[in-house]
């Protein structure tokens, strides 16, 4: 049996659009989806620009019985899972229930629901806390509800592994496919816009306090002053290559390799080595060398020392090619949604492979570093291998290698 995990479906719920039909044109054209926060009103906090999925309401996406039991982050995950299954043309019942699992990454959990119930606890007393608080706030709520809602009883879990957990979830799903699962729904979702969650984020000291959506999130520039937070998420259908082939599925990309390291909280200068090692490990697992990398999707923290470290990692990895391999950070256009940020990057990277285009870094003009950062318009490129980098604010560094389905299948061991 071939060891390869292949992506056959993408489901995206992003500030830039619902579904790949909206998401890809917005990302390709560098559309700016950042705006003043509307969900916290009035907003007493210094962070005012964010990426919100303002058009999304659970009606029509989520069973009303489930809506009252779940937080907004789970509504996103359920909608994204439906979109991914539709994109993959995969009916869950066509896969044995014990061979189809769910793997998500979570950073915030169900914070908005949780805040509402905790307010009831302290304002009115314990008997005023609803029974669904027990399941709605929980990090595993998305994996659980996607599993229940689609009748998936295969190996499932949740990774609470910092922001880079979004890439680690893809690797964990690949592991389940190697152990006998045929299909996995993989991804993550975040809905971190309530006062409690906003206070948690402010403590990071990494969020942009710019009031101008056009300039709030400018990674790799002299104006880099933090990132704009975002809500949303993505789910991917990832299948065993043989299982995908036997049902005649259209393969969008091969998940060829993964690496993860940890370099400590708030030590971004250390993350250069951490990212380098993660990328090298991911390429080795894919059976490739850095020479094979055609484009890099960057983590793009928009913190001066973090940006410098990431640029250094790319330079160390690619050597003299670093100044001519296209690199990009589409999230500058819609914000950074924590554990779902890297999953959205994977979705964008899969679409880039599919369309032969490297999307731009919206709103960024003058890159401070000797990198070929794509700005302005998307750049046509013969993409065979794309590297996705992700870092967590607490020190996780991960890398994922995606390959065009017509590339020779290697790695995944």
């Amino acid at each position, binding site marked *: 049996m071939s060891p390869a995990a292949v992506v056959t479906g993408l489901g995206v719920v992003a500030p830039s659009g619902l579904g790949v039909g909206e998401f890809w044109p917005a990302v390709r054209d560098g559309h700016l989806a950042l705006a003043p926060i509307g969900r916290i009103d009035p907003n007493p906090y210094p962070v005012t620009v964010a990426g919100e999925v303002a058009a999304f309401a659970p009606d029509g996406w989520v069973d009303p019985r*489930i809506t009252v039991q779940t937080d907004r982050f789970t509504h996103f995950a359920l909608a994204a899972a439906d979109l991914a299954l539709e994109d993959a043309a995969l009916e869950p019942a066509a896969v044995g229930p014990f061979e189809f699992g769910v793997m998500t990454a979570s950073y915030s959990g169900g914070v908005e629901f949780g805040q509402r119930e905790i307010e009831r606890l302290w304002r*009115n007393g314990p008997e005023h806390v609803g029974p669904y608080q027990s399941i709605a706030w929980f990090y595993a709520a998305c994996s659980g509800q996607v599993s229940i809602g689609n009748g998936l009883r295969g190996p499932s879990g949740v990774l609470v592994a910092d922001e880079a957990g979004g890439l680690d979830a893809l690797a964990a799903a690949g592991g389940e496919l190697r152990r006998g699962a045929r299909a996995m729904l993989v991804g993550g979702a975040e809905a971190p816009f309530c006062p409690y969650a906003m206070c948690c984020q402010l403590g990071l000291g990494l969020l942009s306090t710019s009031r101008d959506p056009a300039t709030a999130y400018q990674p790799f520039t002299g104006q880099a002053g933090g990132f704009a937070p975002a809500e949303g998420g993505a789910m991917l259908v990832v299948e065993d290559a043989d299982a995908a082939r036997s049902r005649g599925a259209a393969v969008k990309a091969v998940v060829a390799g993964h690496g993860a390291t940890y370099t400590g909280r708030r030590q971004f200068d250390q993350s250069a080595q951490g990212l380098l090692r993660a990328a090298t490990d991911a390429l080795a697992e894919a059976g490739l060398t850095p020479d094979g990398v055609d484009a890099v999707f960057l983590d793009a923290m928009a913190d001066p020392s973090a940006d410098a470290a990431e640029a250094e990692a790319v330079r160390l990895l690619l050597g003299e090619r670093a100044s001519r391999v296209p690199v990009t950070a589409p999230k500058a256009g819609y914000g950074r949604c924590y554990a779902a940020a890297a999953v959205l990057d994977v979705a964008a990277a899969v679409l880039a492979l599919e369309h032969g285009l490297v999307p731009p870094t919206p709103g960024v003009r003058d890159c401070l570093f000797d990198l070929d950062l794509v700005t302005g318009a998307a750049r046509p490129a013969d993409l065979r291998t794309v590297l996705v980098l992700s870092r967590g604010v607490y020190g996780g560094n991960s890398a994922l290698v995606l390959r065009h389905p017509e590339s020779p299948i290697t790695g995944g061991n």
Partner: protein
Amino acid sequence: MDTRLSPDDLAALISRCTGVPVTGEQVTDPSRTFDDLGVDSLGVMGVLSELQRNHGVPKDADLRPHQSPRELLALLPGRV
């Protein structure tokens, strides 16, 4: 505190707490259980808690999914 609930009021309360659309007619049908309506044990617990908090149902009242909303209606004060 409003303790007087009509069957339609109770149906609306169940819908709000559980997300399950319920009619006043279903609430008065003694043969229809919460299970039949698609309300699970956590849903029943949420409905009962709401009635205990705001509608005068005794704290020691108990209710399970195999029971009917009609039985719940009987727990409300001022009703038989």
